[in-house]
């Protein structure tokens, strides 16, 4: 069911051969553990390399995590990790419990759990105070055997203690932005204790996770690295025939396709349900299918068992055009980079064509047997985000509205007229705790309309928020079709009494071209004038993707002076007429 894995020895060997050249991104990770977990760092290095990431790592000594975290001078801190993984084995953490179990009362066992929990959470909290790194701590797996045997479940037994521990761990750490819990419990559930553990390896080297499962663990932990580096996928483009339903609509007809409460029809219903749940958490869906439009859209609109409806798709291309062209158009319509797209198709030739022409797209050739579609998509760790913001939950709806805007634009032939008809309202507010994570997310994800493309973690944004020399604005955009949420941000640094510098200025692609950027700039200029500032400095740092922002400064009246663009505040700035701006 899970994709085949290579031998651990291959990972270890290949990790050494990766040269530090030309990776698109890099990340520094630390691995801490209370058992031997050799090979994990190497597996992660190789897996990261495959997605064009240079992953360097620090691995602490055997069971040294306590000392390493408590000692500010330790190698761990010197390494300056960005993400730290702390993987805990329950039997090593709860060692004593096996000796004392029968002699302790339930109350004492509960106290034991609380004591262990406090020890561990205190260490983790200490770490977050000393390091800027995110920390991913594992919860505990339940040993499948208990001295209580069949009575285990009746008592506050070991499994109950561990469940209790996991629950409390979650509650205690949930409000920490830099702490994540990795569900090691589920890892054991998924692959099975019998497979993961080997008593000989434990006896010889306290190797709790046997060699074959180290690369699988690495794969799971990659699920944190991808969103951290902004490599998560945002959009799924789907074929229709033998993808969303069984059979071919053009041949089998409306009543002949497999979709609904039959053995093979159920498979597609379940696959669609999963896609719908991804849609609900913020993943954009689109269709790219070679079919007669009328025939195929009828299924989407009218089929009783179709879970995904027309309004779940941000873009629909059902035609006989080239699939490459279609997918390019989809990307353009949704305003999303090709590297944020996953394409699902059952036809290996189509997949090959897309793969060759557009290698930035992640192309998934669906398995021959449709019953494996669901486990395949479920096991993908490419859709993770480090946080789900309100904007994520609303995204599907937002894109549906976007489609309506495009339709209005097509009906109105004058741009000014169109902008007026949109009735855009821009609301600009200083950052606060409630908008912090969204603002960080925007800096991490926005590529196109972004003057400097500086990426800021939540921790970094928070420290800038608390810096009195800095001004951070969150830009909320709304129009007659609906609320786009916070879709823009700017970060200004006061260099001295006379000069402000624009550190970051970005706008989500959803709202580009509606004069929101001018509204933002006019807000900055007004604020600067009020403070008696003379000049605003700005910079355009060109990347592969930010062409849409390249002439913005010039358009706003900034004059190029070497590295910087400068706006002289004795000049006037023309506010966009079509927008109502509210500044708080």
């Amino acid at each position, binding site marked *: 069911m899970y994709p085949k894995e290579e031998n651990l020895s291959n990972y270890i060997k290949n990790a050494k051969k990766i040269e530090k050249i030309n990776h698109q991104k890099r990340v520094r990770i630390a691995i801490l553990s209370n058992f031997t977990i050799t090979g994990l760092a190497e597996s992660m290095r190789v897996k990261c390399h495959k997605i064009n990431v240079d992953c360097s790592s620090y691995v602490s000594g055997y069971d040294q995590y306590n000392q390493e975290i408590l000692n500010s001078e330790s190698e761990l801190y010197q390494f300056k990790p960005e993400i730290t993984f702390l993987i805990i084995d329950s039997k090593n953490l709860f060692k004593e419990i096996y000796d004392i179990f029968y002699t302790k009362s339930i109350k004492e066992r509960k106290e034991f759990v609380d004591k262990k929990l406090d020890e561990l959470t205190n260490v983790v909290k200490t770490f977050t105070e000393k390091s800027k790194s995110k920390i991913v701590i594992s919860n505990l797996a339940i040993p499948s055997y208990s001295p209580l045997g069949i009575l285990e479940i009746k008592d506050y037994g070991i499994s109950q203690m561990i469940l209790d521990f996991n629950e409390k761990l979650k509650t205690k750490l949930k409000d920490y932005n830099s702490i994540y819990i990795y569900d090691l419990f589920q890892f054991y559930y998924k692959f099975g204790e019998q497979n993961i553990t080997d008593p000989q390896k434990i006896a010889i*080297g306290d*190797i709790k996770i046997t060699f074959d499962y180290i690369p699988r663990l690495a794969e799971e932990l990659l699920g944190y690295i991808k969103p951290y580096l902004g490599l998560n996928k945002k959009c799924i483009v789907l074929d229709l025939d033998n993808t969303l339903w069984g059979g071919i609509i053009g041949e089998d007809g409306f009543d002949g396709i497999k979709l609904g409460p039959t053995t093979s029809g159920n498979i597609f219903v379940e696959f669609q349900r999963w896609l719908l749940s991804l849609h609900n958490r913020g993943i954009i869906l689109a269709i790219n299918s070679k079919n007669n439009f009328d025939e195929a859209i009828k299924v989407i609109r009218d089929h009783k068992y179709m879970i995904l409806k027309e309004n779940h798709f941000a873009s629909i291309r059902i035609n006989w055009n080239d699939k490459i062209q279609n997918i390019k158009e989809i990307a353009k319509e949704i305003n999303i980079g090709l590297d944020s797209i996953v394409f699902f198709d059952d036809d290996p030739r189509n997949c090959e064509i897309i793969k060759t022409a557009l290698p930035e797209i992640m192309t998934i050739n669906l398995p021959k047997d449709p019953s494996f579609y669901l486990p395949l998509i479920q096991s993908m760790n490419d859709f993770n985000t480090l946080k789900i913001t309100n904007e994520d939950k609303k995204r599907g709806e937002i894109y549906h509205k976007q489609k309506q805007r495009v339709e209005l634009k097509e009906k109105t032939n004058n741009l000014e007229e169109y902008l007026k008809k949109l009735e855009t309202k821009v609301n600009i507010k200083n950052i606060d705790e409630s908008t912090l994570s969204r603002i960080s997310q925007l800096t991490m994800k926005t590529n196109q309309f972004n003057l400097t493309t500086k990426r800021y973690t939540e921790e970094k944004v928070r420290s800038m928020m608390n810096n009195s020399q800095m001004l951070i604005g969150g830009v909320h955009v709304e129009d007659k079709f609906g609320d786009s949420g916070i879709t823009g941000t700017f970060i200004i640094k006061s260099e001295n009494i006379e000069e402000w510098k624009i550190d970051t200025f970005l706008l989500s692609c959803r709202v580009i071209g509606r004069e929101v950027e001018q509204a933002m700039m006019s807000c900055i200029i007004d604020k600067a004038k009020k403070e008696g500032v003379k000049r605003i400095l700005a910079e355009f740092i060109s990347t592969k993707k930010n062409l849409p922002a390249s002439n913005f400064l010039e358009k706003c009246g900034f004059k190029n002076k070497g590295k910087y663009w400068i706006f002289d505040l004795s000049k006037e700035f023309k506010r966009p007429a079509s927008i109502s701006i509210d500044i708080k």
Partner: protein
Amino acid sequence: MSQKLYKIISNVMDISISELTDKSGPENIENWDSYNGLLLIDELESEFNVKFSVDETYDVKIIEDIKRHLKNHGVSLDD
């Protein structure tokens, strides 16, 4: 079969087959540390479909020892 054994060892220890002899082991192969030793045993077990005991694992010093233990488990290494 000897060839298969050498191939596995060369792969795990990241060394060319030509550098291996029956006397090769941790003493004369740089990559052959205790961890790689365990990895090797693990791969031999799955490749030859055998299971070594902890004592046998510890007893392995050089390739000759591996051959002896494989033979005890009924794996014929005659080329």
